């Protein structure tokens, strides 16, 4: 009989042991790692959608389709408009009534459909918007409204998928394993973003309208395929739960919201997440042009900067997953994340003041590490602070704050970058000066976040934090 290579390979893999595979120790008897990894595929589609919107289409619309930059910015801001509704979606999924006992699956499925639908019409909407072919004679509103609808659908879809998906992942595992699941979900998001950025970059190197249609609709198909695969048999059908859903009182949104906000430290945590995400988020789009313009890096070298930043973030996730499974308080770890980020940004500023590229690289790695620690710790803190049975609401609120602040941060950084482009006309300033202002703003926001996270007697007193932030700003 032939040697069974498959069984041999599987045995070898299994004997490597979970201690060498990051995040592998999250698996339990009931929920094996393969199932969690499969569920985490929804984060890959979310990551791909984010990269396509913010990175790829941003460039394609401006450069190849010659759509005015302000219109592009407006279109790309549309998905952001939907971010606050994550709170509501999370609440709806908590209170969902289903004969099957499902709470999260219906929302992930609906979100997937919207995401698919948005991507399916998006390439044609963009071509009409740019006046391709006969569309030059078409009334302007057709292109505008259909492109707007496409971006809204994708935004609504990915917010729904991520909110309900994270809630499902949290439902599936035991409480003490939540930090590891959060880490796994973050890693898969990062993975999806990195891989899709490389793939989109390679596919759209030579642009043609046909290629645009292929790439975007390919993303649509991939979205629905991966999400279906991720969702398959994840949430158990539960007749008892279904009966409970029927009889339990429907909690209105206002009441659930009031209950969440009343929790001690909840508002403070949300403010902390907002400030920190904003602080770290602005760096994302500015690191590469800063490296290029201020420090004279080549294009290939600046791309590696993003890889370095991602490496730092990944290490941050790993450390946070490990540390938070112990007795460590999640908010304190978030504070450490902000603390690591501040010297990172200082190093980045110093690099252009004669510090050299080694200081810069260390700074990039440190900010990445800080961002990873901060993101993981604050999400874990949110899950832990959630009232029982209101995980969806808490995760929705986290997502709303996080997505809104990250989006505003990226948009603001883009505006600042545009100002930088016009700077030579104004004259008098060195190329690195405007960047350094932004990095200084980021340090200020991280300091604010730090102050908010300081444990004190006034933890439940909102007026206390108000006073502190006034003093600093």
């Amino acid at each position, binding site marked *: 009989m032939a040697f069974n290579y498959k069984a041999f390979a599987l045995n070898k893999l299994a004997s490597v042991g979970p201690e060498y595979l990051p995040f592998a120790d999250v698996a339990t008897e009931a929920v094996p790692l393969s199932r969690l990894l499969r569920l985490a595929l929804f984060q890959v589609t979310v990551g791909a959608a984010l990269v396509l919107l913010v990175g790829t289409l941003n460039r394609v619309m401006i450069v190849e389709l010659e759509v005015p930059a302000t219109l592009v910015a407006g279109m790309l801001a549309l998905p952001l408009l939907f971010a606050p509704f994550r709170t509501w979606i999370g609440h709806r999924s908590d209170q969902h009534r289903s004969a*099957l006992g499902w709470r999260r699956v219906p929302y992930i499925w609906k979100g997937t*459909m919207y995401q*698919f639908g948005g991507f399916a019409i998006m390439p*044609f909407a963009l*071509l009409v918007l740019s006046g391709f072919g*006969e*569309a030059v004679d*078409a009334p302007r509103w057709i292109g505008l409204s*259909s492109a707007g609808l496409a971006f809204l659908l994708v935004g609504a879809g990915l917010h729904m998928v991520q909110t309900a998906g994270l809630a499902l992942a949290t439902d599936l595992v035991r409480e003490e394993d939540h930090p590891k699941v959060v880490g796994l979900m973050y890693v898969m998001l990062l993975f999806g973003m990195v891989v899709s950025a490389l793939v989109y970059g390679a596919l759209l190197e030579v642009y043609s309208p046909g290629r645009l249609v292929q790439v975007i609709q390919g993303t649509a198909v991939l979205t629905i395929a991966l999400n279906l695969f991720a969702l398959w048999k994840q949430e158990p059908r539960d007749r008892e739960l*279904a009966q409970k859903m029927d009889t339990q009182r429907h909690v209105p949104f206002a009441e659930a919201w009031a209950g969440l906000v009343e929790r001690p430290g909840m508002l403070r945590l949300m403010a902390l997440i907002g400030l920190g995400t904003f602080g770290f988020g602005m760096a994302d789009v500015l690191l590469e042009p800063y490296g290029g313009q201020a420090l004279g890096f080549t294009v290939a070298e600046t791309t590696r900067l993003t890889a370095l930043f991602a490496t730092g973030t990944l290490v941050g996730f790993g450390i946070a997953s490990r540390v938070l499974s112990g007795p460590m308080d999640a908010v304190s770890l978030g504070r450490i994340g902000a603390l690591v980020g501040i010297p990172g940004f200082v190093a980045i500023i110093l690099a252009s003041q004669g510090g050299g590229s080694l200081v810069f690289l260390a700074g990039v790695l440190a900010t990445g590490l800080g961002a990873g620690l901060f993101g993981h710790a604050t999400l874990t803190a949110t899950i832990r602070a959630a009232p029982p049975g209101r995980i969806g609401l808490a995760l929705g609120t986290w997502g709303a704050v996080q997505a809104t602040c990250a989006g505003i941060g990226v948009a603001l950084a883009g505006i600042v970058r545009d100002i930088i482009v016009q700077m030579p006309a104004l004259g008098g300033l060195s190329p690195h000066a405007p960047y350094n202002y932004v990095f200084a703003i980021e340090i200020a926001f991280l300091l604010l976040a730090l102050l908010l996270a300081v444990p004190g007697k006034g933890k439940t007193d909102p007026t206390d934090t108000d006073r502190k932030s006034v003093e600093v700003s």
Partner: protein
Amino acid sequence: MSDDPDKVWPTGLTLREAEEVHSYLIDGTRVFGAIAVLAHVLVAVSTPWLG
């Protein structure tokens, strides 16, 4: 016999469960149908066919 809400049919589902599964199918068909119509209209605007 179809009055009993707790009866599990050979599909493994009760009547209400089957109706819910069916509702996802209906919703999906509607959304995909609407998307397909819109996509065809947009393609026709930029590259018209049939004259």
